[in-house]
């Protein structure tokens, strides 16, 4: 049985940049524990000599020449931004 504590869930939420309520922390503690327990059935399989698959096809690194080309303008890049100033994204202060 996977034993995931509420503190662990809160830590994971912080890593994932999610703000969760006390009730959500409890719900996710239960649900993640049961999902992880379910996932632990994979341990029935001996995979010592099995290579992991990250990609099903034999795909190689794709490189292209570093040539400048037109994509979008600065103005276009800004037009969906929630907040901006002088052609730059504006965010709340980083330092307290």
């Amino acid at each position: 049985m996977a034993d995931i504590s509420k503190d662990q869930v809160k830590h994971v939420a912080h890593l994932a940049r999610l703000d969760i309520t006390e009730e959500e922390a409890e719900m996710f503690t239960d649900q993640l524990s049961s999902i992880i327990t379910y996932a632990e059935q994979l341990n029935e399989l001996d995979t010592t000599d099995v290579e992991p698959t990250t990609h099903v096809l034999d795909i190689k690194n794709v490189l292209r020449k570093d040539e400048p080309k037109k994509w979008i303008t600065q103005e276009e890049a800004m037009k969906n931004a929630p907040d901006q100033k002088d052609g730059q994204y504006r965010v709340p202060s980083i330092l307290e």
Partner: protein
Amino acid sequence: MSLFDYTIKELEAKLHINEITVQELVETSYQRIKEVDGDVHAFLTLNEEQAIAYAKQLDESSERNKSLFGMPAGVKDNIVTKALRTTCASQFLDNFNDPLYNATVVEKLNNEQVVTIGKLNMDEFAMGSSNENSSYEPTRNPWNTDYVPGGSSGGSAASVAAGEVLFSLGSDTGGSIRQPAAFCGVVGLKPTYGRVSRFGLVAFASSLDQIGPITRNVEDNARVLEVIAGHDPMDSTSADVEVPAYTEALTGDVRGLKIAVPKEYLAEGVDPEVKQSVLEALKVYESLGATWEEVSLPHSKYAVAAYYLLSSSEASANLARFDGVRYGVRSENADNMIDMFKKSRSEGFGEEVKRRIMLGTFALSSGYYDAYYKKAQKVRTLIKNDFDSIFETYDVVIGPTTPTPAFKIGEKVDDPLTMYANDIITIPVNLAGVPGISVPCGFSEKGLPIGLQIIGKHFDENTVFRAAHAYEQATDHHKQRPQLGGANA
């Protein structure tokens, strides 16, 4: 009879002799949407003004040689459309009204003069199997609006089934095209991994995601794939493999076709009505000169567990881009930047999306990576090897698309694991990266469609289409149309 009961080829002929106009086709779409979408909720955004104007322009044009000239289509809302709102059915992107570019698949449809009718509802960020995770009104099954249409491409399947568009595009990470196609009684293909460019598809799990067509018949499906398939310099995972003329594979001839039927796909947990429909489909194949044998894909039962670890891990990384800085809805209640990230994401994401980000972040976090993520990748290898060895002897693998027909709205929302188990027969196909199609193969006693899944070798969509088409032409299931309505529909 609706114009959308014709195939693309038949409509093309009608357009050619001026029996119909593109404008009539496009108005057929919007008329039907006005009639039924208040019940079905397949669409999130309509493109009506631009679509009608474009239809008129096409009607005036003397050049009519493009392969999808004037065909009205819907696009799943996780596929980016320039200047047309793209939300992924998430509140986070509720205001994303002005995307800067088209996904490659959309460019390809545009090049063939398809008319984009609108954007289709889905489970938020493609995470779900019922469309109940849409942050807007959930899509309902046109065969019976008390039931789910499946997911995550529920709007894509329901819109085609309800006759709102001629065809649609969906995306499939663990069954998200095939399962809703089965639930809604239409044809849905997940192509081989790498067959179709994902440039402009909002990424969920990058090692699994594929875009594919949903249509009312196999011929149309092959025709749309011909257009959207192919290598794309903008997607380094798209494969540089020649695109055959898929429609030419539809010979109706399956004599000598060797079919493998995994016993795990008809095991306990598969509804007797579903099993019966599949066995009857196999008899049809026998009568057409194909042969089938029972085989084993021994690692099938581990697929769901491996899938949820892998897909959630990849999702937790992919969804990190939603930070409220460059686009999307930013929380107004934040004191500093980290707080802004957290509040924007928490206010913008629904519960299932948070659950998967949490699971993925946990599985990738220090100390757990080897035990969960890497272990799942190794099990993925075993599942892929299962398919490789079957395909040394057989041409296709056939089974049901889903263990049961559509379930009722609300029936599984409280238990994520029960919901996840619904994808048990579609998930191995994504893990192995092979192509799979769902075609209608019957109806339950309650009148809900049942889907037959045909799985092929990497890049052998030709054989998958040929097998699907021969079965379809020998049966009438694909000619049935839903009556919209409540319990007695």
